[in-house]
C-alpha cells in the first residue's frame, strides 16, 4: 500500500495550500482530488483558462494559479481524478481512479472537501435547465460555456459575481431575482464594523453591482412566491416582487442562496458537527488548527465552516503546520511562531462574515417549502412527505429514511440533508442539533465491483 506523511483530500485553496506548506517542511504529501486538474470549485481549471476566460473571471480567480503552481513542488504527489469512497482506522483512505480502486495510508489526514451549494428547493427546481449558480460558473471556468438566456435566483455575493461575469462575457442574464429584503440589509448594518475591517469585500460587491446595473439587467428584490415553470425543461420563473407578479421567460435558471460545508467525509469518520445558527448549517467542531473532535483528522477550508477562498488558503496552511508538528518535523514553538501571522490574517478575513451572513440570509421559502415541493431530488420525496413522517412520530433524518427513503439515492443526502433536518425540526418543535443529521457511511461515492477487483494494494494510480 502507498503511504504518505500527510494525505490531503481535495485540491481547492485549502488543500493546495496545506499540501505546499506540509511539503515545505519536508513531509511527503499526497493530494487526492476528484477533478482532472487542481483548483477546487473556486479556482476550477485555473491552469487552462486562456486570456479570454481570464478577463471574464477576474484577478481573484487567477490567484488560484499561484496555488496550483505550489502544488507542483517536490514532495507532493497530486493524484487527480481520485474519488475517495472510504476513510478507515487511523487514516487508510480508499479511492477509485480510472476504474481501479487503490488505498493509501496517511500519517496525518487533512480533509479539504470544500462546500456545496445550499439546497434551494422551490417548485420546479428539478427541471432540466435549472442549475446552481456555482454550476453556471463551473461551465464558464472549465469549459468556456455560458447560458444565453438565464435568470439568476436567490441571494449572496456569488449571485452578483456570476451575473457580472456573464455581463463581461457578453451574455448578461435576463434578470436577477433577489430574495433578500431591505430589512435584511438594515439588520446586517450592526455588523458593519466587522465588515469595514473587510472593506475590500464590500468595495468589490459594489463594483459588481455597478457592472450589473450598467448592463441594464433588471433586478427584482425581496422576491417571494418563486416558482420555475416548465414541463420537460425550465421555461420561465414566476415571482412576486414590489407588489406585482412577474413571469420571466428563460432557458436556464441559476439558483443560489449561499454555500454550506460539504461534511460527507468528516461525518463518515465520526467528526462531531454542531449547528451554526449564523450560517444556517452544520459545521464540524474544531480547534484553532482544524483538529476535529471525534476523529483523527484536520479539517481546513469551507468544509470547516464557510469563510471563502482566502480563509480556506490560510486554514490549509495552519492545519498543515499542526500536521508537521504532530509528525515531529517542527516543534510546538516553531509551529506557533509560523502560525501567528496566518491566524491574524484569518481573523481579519473572517471579520466580514457576520455582515454577509446577516445581509444575505437563506431564502425562507426554500427552508420551509410548500408540501408539494420535492426536497430529495434522487428519491423524489416532497416537503409534505417529510411533514407527514413527523406526524407519524418520526423525530430524526435516519428514521425518515425508513419512512420514504429521503437521502438514500445516489447523492446520499448531499442536496436534501439540510432540508430534511430543517423540516423535521420545524415540525417537531426541536432544534437542528436535537434533530440531528443523516448518518453518512462509506462508500462515499459509488464503487463498481470491477474497480474493487482491480485493487492491487500497490496503488499504481499515483503514476
Amino acid at each position, binding site marked *: 500500500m502507498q503511504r504518505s506523511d500527510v494525505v490531503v483530500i481535495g485540491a481547492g485553496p485549502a488543500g493546495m495550500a496545506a499540501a505546499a506548506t506540509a511539503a515545505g517542511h519536508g513531509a511527503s504529501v499526497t493530494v487526492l482530488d*476528484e477533478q*482532472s486538474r487542481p483548483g477546487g*470549485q473556486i479556482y476550477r481549471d485555473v491552469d487552462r483558462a*486562456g486570456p*479570454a*476566460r481570464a478577463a471574464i473571471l477576474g484577478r481573484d480567480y487567477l490567484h488560484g494559479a499561484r496555488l496550483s503552481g505550489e502544488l507542483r513542488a517536490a514532495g507532493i504527489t497530486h493524484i487527480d481524478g481520485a*474519488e475517495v469512497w472510504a476513510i478507515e482506522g487511523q487514516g487508510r483512505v480508499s479511492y477509485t481512479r480510472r476504474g481501479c480502486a487503490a488505498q493509501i495510508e496517511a500519517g496525518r489526514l487533512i480533509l479539504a472537501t470544500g462546500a*456545496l*451549494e445550499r439546497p434551494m428547493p422551490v417548485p420546479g427546481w*428539478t*427541471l*432540466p*435547465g*435549472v*442549475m*446552481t449558480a*456555482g*454550476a453556471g460558473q*463551473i*461551465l464558464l471556468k*472549465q*469549459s*468556456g*460555456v*455560458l*447560458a*444565453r*438566456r438565464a435568470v439568476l435566483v436567490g441571494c449572496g455575493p456569488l449571485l452578483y459575481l456570476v451575473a457580472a461575469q456573464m455581463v463581461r*462575457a457578453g*451574455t448578461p442574464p435576463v434578470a436577477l431575482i433577489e430574495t433578500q429584503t431591505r430589512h435584511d440589509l438594515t439588520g446586517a448594518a450592526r455588523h458593519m464594523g466587522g465588515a469595514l475591517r473587510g472593506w475590500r469585500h464590500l468595495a468589490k460587491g459594489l463594483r459588481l453591482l455597478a457592472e450589473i446595473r450598467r448592463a441594464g439587467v433588471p433586478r427584482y428584490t425581496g422576491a417571494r412566491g418563486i416558482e420555475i415553470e416548465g414541463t*420537460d*425543461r425550465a421555461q420561465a420563473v414566476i415571482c412576486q416582487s414590489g407588489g406585482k407578479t412577474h413571469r420571466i421567460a428563460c*432557458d*436556464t435558471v441559476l439558483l443560489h442562496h449561499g454555500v454550506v460545508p*460539504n461534511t460527507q467525509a468528516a461525518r463518515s469518520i465520526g467528526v462531531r458537527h454542531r449547528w451554526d445558527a449564523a450560517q444556517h448549517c452544520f459545521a464540524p467542531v474544531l480547534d484553532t488548527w482544524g483538529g476535529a473532535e471525534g476523529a483523527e483528522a484536520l479539517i481546513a477550508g469551507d468544509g470547516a465552516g464557510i469563510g471563502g477562498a482566502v480563509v480556506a488558503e490560510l486554514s490549509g496552511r495552519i492545519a498543515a503546520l499542526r500536521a508537521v508538528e504532530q509528525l515531529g518535523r517542527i516543534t510546538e514553538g516553531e509551529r506557533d511562531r509560523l502560525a501567528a501571522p496566518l491566524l491574524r490574517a484569518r481573523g481579519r478575513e473572517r471579520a466580514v462574515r457576520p455582515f454577509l451572513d446577516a445581509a444575505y440570509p437563506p431564502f425562507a421559502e426554500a427552508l420551509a417549502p410548500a408540501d408539494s415541493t420535492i426536497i430529495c*431530488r*434522487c*428519491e*423524489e420525496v416532497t416537503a409534505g412527505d417529510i411533514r407527514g413522517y413527523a406526524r407519524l412520530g418520526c423525530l430524526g433524518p435516519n428514521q425518515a429514511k425508513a419512512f420514504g427513503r429521503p437521502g438514500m*439515492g*445516489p*447523492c446520499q443526502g*448531499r*442536496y436534501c440533508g439540510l432540508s430534511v433536518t430543517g423540516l423535521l425540526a420545524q415540525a417537531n418543535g426541536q432544534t437542528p442539533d436535537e434533530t440531528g443529521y443523516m448518518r453518512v457511511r462509506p462508500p462515499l*461515492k459509488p464503487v*463498481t465491483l*470491477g474497480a474493487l477487483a482491480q485493487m492491487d494494494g500497490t496503488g499504481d494510480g499515483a503514476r
Partner: protein
Amino acid sequence: MKTVSPFLELEEKPRVGVTFEGERFELPEGENLAASLLAAGVRVFRRTPVSDAPRAPFCMMGACFDCLVEIDGVVRQACMIDVVDELEIVRPGAEAAKGTDDAAK
C-alpha cells in the same frame, strides 16, 4: 434534440465524434462531457427511476448525480468525464428498458 443550444461556447476547439442515444455529436476533445453535451443542445440526460421525470446537470461538481449517463454499461456522472473520441453514451437504464419492451412483444 439538436435544437438551438441554450448555451454559448466562447472558444472553438478541435472536435471528436460521440453518440448520445444513437445520435451523433461533434464535441470538443478533452473537455467536460456534461458541459459539452449541454452546449451541443442535449436537454435531457436521464429520466428518474421513481417517476420517469427528465433530469439534466444541476451541480456540475460530482455531488448531485443528476447528470448520470451510461457508457460501456457503467452508469457514471457526465460532469466527471472528459470527452474522448467515439464515446457511446446512452441514458441510464435505456438498454435494460429496451430489453424489457422487446421481451413484452
